[in-house]
């Protein structure tokens, strides 16, 4: 059942978020002063777009709710349909396990890397090398390399070359002040 409604549920969540954003933008836009230099003023576009997004999201919400209710009422040969879809997917691409946990881990590591750069506690090269080693090592676990030691050495080598190479190029060639 969860699978059957997942698309509608996702659209409902999306439209609710969009309605909340458009409401916030509209309310903020009402505080923008109109200087009278032109007819529409600075608030016009944000307000118009907020209304547009709000209305379209409301439509999407209504459609998703109706589809969900309709799916509940009608009895469909769900199992048969799902088997068919799975077979089609298998033809399109071989099955594989998705790793949302690794994706989440990468988001956290990247956020930590940006925070470290912003804090200026360590140099750019050290922060970058550490970021590459940590994130590439985490991903390598799931890539199952033939020789883990060789992979680790490659990761460390890449990290050092990239981090110090970029630091050199940006500070010495492009004359940019890196964090």
């Amino acid at each position, binding site marked *: 059942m969860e699978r059957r409604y997942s698309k509608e549920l996702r659209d409902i969540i999306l439209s609710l978020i969009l309605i909340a954003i458009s409401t916030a933008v509209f309310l*903020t836009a009402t505080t923008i002063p109109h200087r009278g230099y032109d007819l529409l003023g600075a608030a016009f576009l944000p307000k118009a777009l907020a209304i547009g997004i709000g209305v379209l999201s409301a439509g999407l919400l209504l459609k998703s709710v109706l589809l969900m209710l309709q799916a509940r009422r009608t009895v469909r040969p769900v199992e048969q349909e799902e088997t068919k879809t799975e077979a089609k997917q298998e033809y399109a691409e071989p099955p594989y396990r998705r790793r949302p946990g690794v994706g989440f881990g990468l988001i956290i590591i990247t956020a930590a890397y*940006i925070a470290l750069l912003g804090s200026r506690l360590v140099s750019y090269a050290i922060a970058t090398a550490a970021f590459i080693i940590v994130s590439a090592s985490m991903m390598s676990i799931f890539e199952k390399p033939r020789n883990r030691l060789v992979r680790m050495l490659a990761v460390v080598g890449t990290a050092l070359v990239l981090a110090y190479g970029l630091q050199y190029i940006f500070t010495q060639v492009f004359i940019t002040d890196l964090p």
Partner: protein
Amino acid sequence: MATFLAELTNVFTVWSLFFMFIGVFLGCTVGAIPGLSGSMLIALSVPLTYYMDSVHAMRMLVSMYVGAISGGLISATLLRVPGTPSAVVTTFDGFPLARSGDPGRAIGVGVYASFFGGLISWLFLVLLAPLLARVALRFSSWEFFALVLMALVLIAALGSGTFVKAIISGFLGLLLATPGLDPIDSTKRLTFGFSQVTGGLGLLPVLIGMFGISQMITDTVELEKRVERVPLKFKGMFLTLKQLKSHSINLIRSSVIGTWIGILPGIGGVLGSIPAYGAARNASKEPEKFGHGSEEGIVASEAANNATINGALIPMITLGIPGSVITAILMGALILHGYTPGPMLFGKSPDIVFSIISTALVANVFMFVVMLGFGMVIARLTDLPKSFLVTAILVFCVIGTFGLNNRIFDVWLMFILGLIGFGLEKAEVPLGPFIIGFVLSPIAESKLRSALMSSKGSFLPLVTRPISLVFTLVALATLAYALYQEVVVPARAQFKRRRGDTS
């Protein structure tokens, strides 16, 4: 003409050739690696070009565009995974032909078709761009506003995803460009207390976040994705004149279709190859071979998707309206280098216009050489572990965004937009309209407001001026068609199904 010839000779300087070769090689490589895209490569390269001479910068970026669209052929043929969305149709016949024992032939046919597609559409670029720019000089604010409106509706209606979600995406892009100082009266708006936003949200954090970060998260989640591989062989890669001649009509037809679809504002290469493929199948003596390794199918798809490149450059150079997502990024690069894309560009900066046009030709030749000469090397690069690619690209995302203004705020902005982009993609909201909306927002707003000032608040010129009327009608017709497809067609199908159930 004299400027064009002078610029054409400038192409053959060592540095120009070097940047074009690098651009094509990187483009082909990135285009061939599933999970990386030309949009991402070009968005990531824009900050690096900031330190370069503008002409060399545009040469490299345009070359990347040519390479990225062409490189998709390698993975589409050898892995059945389109490296770029525009190579989707190539998988239909490229992979079956490669698997039947002729991978060299499949790649060879595709490379030749890409080359001729690029060449034919380049002729259109050279002939049409100056004419269109001259016509566009007569456009008033109303025509430009109607054109932007048409571009947004077209990309939402004909792009990927549902129409409503695509329109929402376009609106979000337009909205994201509004914070900062108002373009007409400089009123501060939607800054939410952040002084860094006063100058507006930068194009680079938006582009790199949307195309770089979101794609890297997706690639990490799909870390264990494996594909069937066909090893590439040199045998059959080079075609004889007789073999080429047998494809000549298909080549010309598909290139013309691709060019015209590329010209349509906001639509990229994916759409170019579909009608070309259909037309080739209809005209073929062996339509039953299509989908089973037909050379004609590969020719149609590859000629058309490469032809869209030059097609898409036409509205970008002449009207300041991007013909595809990548040209939206190229437009951003032009703006960063201090140019204003649009009809005035021809008069004010002919050097940059003609350098783009000449690069489109030379990069096409480089593409031919790189794909045939280094195809085997590029095919091997698709084996690179994702852990290396993802982390290296993330490092480039961060340094590229930081390097432009030396602000960590921009890096956070890019990161957050990347997460938003990832969320939007998961919700099947296409990112193309978002980027095009973001790029076109300032034009749309300033043109509408100055147009209304000139008409004293009346919207009538939108329908009383012939050119703006045409653009408005096309926008309305596309809107009606899209709504019909999204609302009426499914409702009718459901009604029929129900009637069938009850009877």
